[in-house]
């Protein structure tokens, strides 16, 4: 990859088209996104050391409406990254699995939707029902 051809967002993130690259991009974006959440999360849990009042006040950060919306993204990120990561691990552990990559991706997508959609549904319904 030579440097001067790096123009535009697409080439900057390394995206080159195709469903394999879409999965690659999602895997990277969700991994980095979850890592960002984790950093905030650790700071948040660290505040336990400042006592009950301080800690409980900041829990608002998890329970505010916009936070509940972000949590659906977190659920998406962790669930997708976990399933795609598992597929990668399986393919690396059993090289012959590469021959069936397309089928494995299809299984992954079905499993992902089967877990994520109901979970997201419960979260959103719970949030809408419990709001106010």
């Amino acid at each position, binding site marked *: 990859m030579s440097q001067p051809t790096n123009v535009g967002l697409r080439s*900057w993130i390394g995206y080159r088209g195709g469903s*394999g690259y879409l999965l*690659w991009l999602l895997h990277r974006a969700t991994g980095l996104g979850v890592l960002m959440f984790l950093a905030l999360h*650790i700071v948040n849990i660290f505040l336990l050391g400042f006592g*009950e009042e301080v800690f409980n006040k900041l829990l608002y950060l998890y329970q505010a409406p916009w936070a509940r919306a972000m949590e659906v993204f977190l659920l998406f990120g962790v669930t997708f990254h976990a399933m795609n990561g598992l597929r990668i691990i399986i393919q690396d552990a059993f090289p012959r699995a590469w021959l069936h990559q397309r089928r494995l991706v299809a299984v992954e997508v079905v499993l992902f939707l089967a877990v994520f959609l109901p979970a997201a549904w419960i979260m959103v319904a719970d949030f809408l029902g419990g709001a106010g």
Partner: protein
Amino acid sequence: MSERSEGGGHDRPAGSGFEPRAWFFMRLSGVVLLGLAVFHLYWMHFAIGVDNIDFQTVVGRWSNPLWRIYDFALLVFALSHGFNGLRYAIEDYVRRPGRRRMVKSIAYVAGFLLISAGAYIIFTFDIGAA
């Protein structure tokens, strides 16, 4: 380092040394996190419920040392896996050597602070005083 397979994940780096080990560690920690992180997230959401979590919830959970060990393992695996992944991304995007070294150093310092803060609270949090 920008060698990559379709759909995420690097091909195993050739030879022996740090990079093949890091590659293997990403897969090992991935399997571990499949249990630890996924269970933690789904448990917090669907067994406890985000609205029901407060200081006393954590006091209750951390009165059992097994949960502290669980959280410590989650902390160590998620941070080492996540920061090695961040290193892959930095190596793809930050190409000038000096700048790359600087960005990596910042990342490593951040990782060190996070693991210190996380471990500190897990092992010093005193439920007797709470």
